[in-house]
């Protein structure tokens, strides 16, 4: 009798273990990923398939299809049910709900198998038993595919595209009269800049020797006078040292009655 339930015992054990790992040890990432994949994409469907078809109605490919297809479908429906029941869709609720569905289906499957006399699988069992040659070839195939994927995922240099720089200026969040000015370099080489700040065309401040590496950034806060009665425009201009006469970037901030309202 127990032999008939081997797979279900394994499913129940793995499901409980997965829920425990997910809830108690979420920091162990590889184990967490494995448990999540099992709990979302395999176990609910497998247990439901076993509950629906306790005998040898399905062969292995069909069982694989039912397990994957039902897992996808059930996970979507479980999510909807959690939403309807006003449960937040988060780690705990997902773990308990999917673990619960798996356990309930596995118990139902065990109950339905109790009087089964035939073996659970059909005699022409579809087992995966690679011999040495198959193992070597499949291993090589996996290795080459993995290398191809890795090659695709790694960013590469590209001589045909050019870098750029962000210049930005926003008021400070705390409602003070401060302005934040920043430069983010996305250039492909070390770049020297000159930043100038104007108030209604009058030079307010300048930072002449700014040097940023690719990916580097610079920002500063400027304290302004109290909000003026009339509108004034603060403008920041960015120059590159290799083209000092040409405005490379410019931003502006409008101060006045409107700003006070905002």
């Amino acid at each position, binding site marked *: 009798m127990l032999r008939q339930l081997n797979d279900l015992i394994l499913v129940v054990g793995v499901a409980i273990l997965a829920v425990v790992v*997910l809830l108690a040890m979420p920091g162990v990432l590889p184990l967490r990923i494995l*448990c*999540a*994949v099992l709990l979302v*994409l395999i176990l609910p469907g497998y247990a*439901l*398939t076993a509950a*629906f078809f306790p005998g040898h109605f399905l062969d292995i*490919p*069909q069982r*694989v*299809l039912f397990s*994957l*297809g039902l897992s*996808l*479908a*059930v996970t*979507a*429906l*479980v999510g*909807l049910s959690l*939403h309807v029941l006003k449960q*937040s*869709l*988060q780690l705990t609720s997902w773990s308990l709900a*999917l673990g619960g569905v798996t356990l309930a289906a596995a118990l139902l499957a065990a109950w339905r198998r109790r009087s089964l006399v035939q073996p659970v699988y059909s005699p*022409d069992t*579809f087992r995966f*038993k*690679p*011999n040495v040659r198959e193992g070597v070839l499949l291993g*090589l195939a996996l290795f*080459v595919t993995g290398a191809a*994927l890795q*090659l695709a*995922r790694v*960013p*590469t*240099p*590209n001589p*045909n*595209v050019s*870098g*750029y720089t*962000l*210049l*930005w*200026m*926003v008021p400070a969040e705390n409602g003070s009269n401060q302005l934040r000015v920043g430069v*983010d370099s996305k250039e*492909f080489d070390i770049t020297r800049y000159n930043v100038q700040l104007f108030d209604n065309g009058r030079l307010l401040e300048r930072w002449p020797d700014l040097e940023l590496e*690719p990916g580097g950034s610079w920002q500063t806060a400027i304290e302004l006078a109290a909000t003026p009665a009339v509108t004034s*425009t603060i403008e920041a201009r*960015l120059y590159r040292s290799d083209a000092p006469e040409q405005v490379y970037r*410019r*931003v*502006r*901030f409008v101060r006045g009655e*409107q700003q006070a309202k*905002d």
Partner: protein
Amino acid sequence: MENTDKILEVETPVISQTPTRPAPFTIRTWITIDTGNWGRLPILCLIGAVGLALVSIADTLARSGMGRYELLFWLGLSLLVGPIGGRLASRAPTRRERIGLVMVLGLGLYLVKIMHSPQAFTFSDELIHYFNGNRILETGRLFSPNPILPVTPSYPGLETVTASLSSLSGLNLFDSGIIVLGVARLVTMLALFLFVEQISRSAHVAGMAALLYTAHANFLFWSVQYSYESLALPLAIFVLYLAARRADTTLRSQRVALTLAALIGIEAVVITHHLTSYFLVVFLICWALIVRFRIHVAMKAGALGVVSWYAGETALGQLVRGYGQRLRSGAQAARARGLKANVKTALENRGGPGDLALMALGSALLWQILIASATSSYLAPVLSRAFTSIIQIIIGESTARELFQSEAGYTAPILERLIAFGSVLLLALGVPFGLRKIWQQYRHHPVATLLAGATLLYFAMLALRFSPAAWETGNRASEFVFLGVAFVLALALIEWWNSPNMTRIGQVLIMASIALIFMGGIIAGWPPLLRLSRPLQVKVDQLKIEPQGMATTRWLRSVLGPDHTLIADESNGRLLLAYGGQNPLVGRNLNVNEVIGAELIEDWHLELMREQQVEYVLVDRRRVSWNNMAGYYFDEPESEALVPKGLFAPEIYEKFDSRPEVGRLLDSGNIVIYDVRTLRNVTSVK
């Protein structure tokens, strides 16, 4: 009792009982002889992996600006598809090997898409669904509104599954989506194989049909993008398999189990994608009607009767009465002999999926009424535009669309056009033979009859490609109706392959034809300049630099925070939505394209910004930013062939600078973000 449940005439592996001498150890024997348990699957896996490596190299070279080696891409695909196709076409493989080959093929082609966009979701619809998935992760609730495509949150199936995997595993949404879509692709291939096998009773036909299905225009990229249809379609094919299996089952307990499994699948499809649920409803209803009115049984007599009526030998009333009599006598005969009297009678009298059709119809309607009421307002304009466009072409009021020409004027190379036309021609040549095979061998099978109808529909829908407003509808429908084409063509090809007169040259020609059909599908389904990967991240020293759109999106989120209302172009709007968590207004929605594209600010622009509480406007001076497929990447010389070249006129992209009250928050060169909150109090530009 079990005999009726077993698939009849399915080829089973022949395992020799006689011990044989092992082949001598040479490289050639090592790779060409069946390895034992899995036939040639392992070596074909390795060849396919080499093909994937070539595709990856082609993508990497394109991404790194070292050249667009399309030939390498096609060679890689050929190595992946060709040998597996050849093996599936031959009679030698066992069922187990065929199933393995079909799954490897499906997964391999899925990896081609991953290699195309390995770092982030970049397809237009992907960014919309990525936002929905992130909202589920952030809020723990479904149905958060989506400002760009409001209908999508009403169908949260894919995002729910992805969010569950992401929540549980700690992986980000991109990696979780890749895993879920990979499993969905496996379900597609396995369900398709088993579905066709159930109908045809042949693993050979099933393998070929699965191979041919990979040749439809959307299979390589569109069907595996992170979008609701990519999960719904596999589940729909799974439901079709369950229904076909149930129709062949007489055991009550198994019928109940299959019905329950099908219902779970149907509900999942209904909450995942509107069009796929409609397709499923229509398929199941047609199938039920064919069975109910025994159309598949009376087809031959009906055809002869119609011919006779057309020739004036029979009156219409007589024809209808005769059909009714045949129905009654057929039913009586079936009752008298019982369902298991013989295979033909059993096939003719198998139960239809009427209950499943009703359940699918009811669920889809209920979902649309209660949850997804926006669906009709989303689909109706698309379908009515398509319909109007077709009518206008027919009555000569508008001109037909130029095939292989983008709206921006890009024309596909002549060789690609020839291949695409050739593939349709080959399909059209092969299908009549498949239909004849159905007539001879499968016309008593209701699903085979239905698939034959779908094949004819596919060719009718090709005409939609001539309509500017309807081509996309036709393109999207192809992945449903191509199920029929794959089945019908598989029957034709296998009949030719197994013909006693078939020579080696003939087999090579058949394989070349399959390759041409496959290439034609890819050419018809995806723009040439987006077929290879484009630069989304560039390595500089040990850093990776992203394009301006991505950088401004990240800046906006980190400095100003999420949930701001912005006006933006098509591509930057999607980036702001997906990666910025903003509330962008884009495209034809509220005519914001006209706000960005105008040379002057007009009063209605101000009114729109006031009504929609617009805070910022993002202006990208590149024309490519309006292209929601190509606007996300670094600019390269070749990319300009896809869209009108260069930049908009300065009057367009600098018009907000002329308003003194408008702030200019960020300047990245091509992109400027304006603060337009001050315009809320301005009622007129004068």
